[in-house]
């Protein structure tokens, strides 16, 4: 007998509204511990004071219910839909957009989406959301949310390496990109790195990489070693908190790799700001 499970899209909508509220106002413990660790390692007044303000910012946001950042972002939504799940209710994309519209209105978040990239008229609802939907085996339903600000998104980068290029060249490229971006993406960064796939897969993976449980390294030792090398390199680059100079340039480095063409080695970078607004749940 074929298994099946029914999920109503109202439940998906309610969960997404909750995730938007949570990520907009609450910095998770991992972020606060990371900020405290960076502050302890800084030797200049500007870097320490910058970290003090970022730490106090997380406290004020939670206590006063003021968004962590005025750029409350676009909603990037990742859905893993089990093949045996039957959805009931609205078209799922409509349910997601209706959650975004409701949450951005109800929680007084900024509406930062324009309907056309050249005409640039604000939709007034922060919709559409940017939705990545994957079909997975079984009956699971997983929802992950990333709120992404424009200043950090604008520093995104992609380079198509030669398959014969060395890992050291990739690390050099990553450091060079982060140093050139300097203050603009609001360091300390949470760097997502997509390696392999086609160009578009690599870019998406540079976001997916940051959905991993907070504070963990890659499960494959080869990639966790590479993450640590990149992390060390970035934190000796001198960019520092908000680019004012210092030791705290990266809070975490997360790689997501994918199979690639014999001719291709894409490396995509998501220079996520210190305000990492990511959360997920399973239904």
């Amino acid at each position, binding site marked *: 007998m074929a298994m099946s499970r029914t999920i109503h899209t109202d439940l998906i909508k309610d969960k997404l509204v909750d995730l938007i509220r949570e990520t907009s106002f609450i910095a998770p413990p991992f972020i606060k511990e990371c900020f405290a660790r960076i502050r302890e390692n800084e030797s200049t*007044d*500007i870097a320490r*004071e*910058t970290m003090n*303000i*970022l730490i*106090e*910012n*997380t406290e*004020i*946001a939670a206590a*006063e*219910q*003021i*968004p*962590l*950042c*005025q*750029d*409350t972002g676009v909603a990037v939504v990742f859905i893993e839909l089990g093949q045996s799940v039957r959805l009931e209710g609205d078209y799922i994309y409509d349910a997601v957009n209706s959650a975004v519209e409701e949450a951005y209105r109800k929680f*007084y*978040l*900024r*509406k*930062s989406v324009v309907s056309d990239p050249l005409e640039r008229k*604000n939709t007034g609802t922060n919709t559409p959301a940017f939705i990545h939907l994957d079909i997975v085996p079984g009956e699971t339903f997983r929802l992950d949310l990333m709120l992404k*600000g*424009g*200043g950090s998104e*604008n520093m995104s980068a992609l380079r198509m390496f030669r398959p014969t290029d060395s890992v050291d060249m990739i690390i050099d490229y990553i450091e060079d990109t982060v*140093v050139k971006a*300097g*203050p*603009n993406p*609001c360091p300390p960064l949470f760097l997502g790195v997509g390696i392999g796939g086609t160009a578009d897969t690599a870019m998406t993976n540079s976001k997916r990489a940051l959905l991993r449980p907070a504070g963990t390294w890659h499960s494959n030792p080869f990639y966790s070693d590479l993450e640590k090398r990149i992390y060390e390199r970035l934190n000796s*680059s*001198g*960019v*520092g908190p*908000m*680019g*004012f*100079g210092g030791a705290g340039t990266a809070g975490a480095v997360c790689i997501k790799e994918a199979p690639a063409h014999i001719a291709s080695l894409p490396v995509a970078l998501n220079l996520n*700001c*210190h*305000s990492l607004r990511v959360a997920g749940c399973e239904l």
Partner: protein
Amino acid sequence: MEWKRIELPLNDEVIRGLRAGCMCMLYGKLLTARDKAHQRIAGMIARGEDLPFSLAGETIYYVGPTPPAPGRIIGAAGPTTSSRMDPFSGTMLGLGIKGMIGKGKRDLETKELIQKYKAVYFSSIGGAGAYLSMRITASRVIAFDDLATEAVYELEVSGFPVIVACDMYGGDIYEHQV
């Protein structure tokens, strides 16, 4: 290093005393403007129209706040990336602004204009939207209200932290690193 108390509006004597890397707490009135307000100001000036407000002596804060929740003066209100306003530096400094507040690097032309007009560019703390909101004691839209979050607001700030990023002597905090 201590935070230096700076009263707004800025004057030439105060600006002469500001060097890249100086930590300042601002007190007084600011005007806000970001991408679309700059574009509109530049368009009006190009057409020979009068602005509905004066920019002489003002300090401009690059910000697009979140809407205020009921009972609040303003929502989250941290700085946005300043380099997007670089193409308008000549127009704005020509209209008499003395200070700019945002985050991140400025282009070479803007840095030269800052020296020419004896002005100053401050970076505030990007992503500290909630913290900076609490340092704003009054807020009202004074122009371009159709631009919503991108309208021109007059803000009153008290203890608003900024770092001198580009000074009138050509100093640039972002050139000291790496």
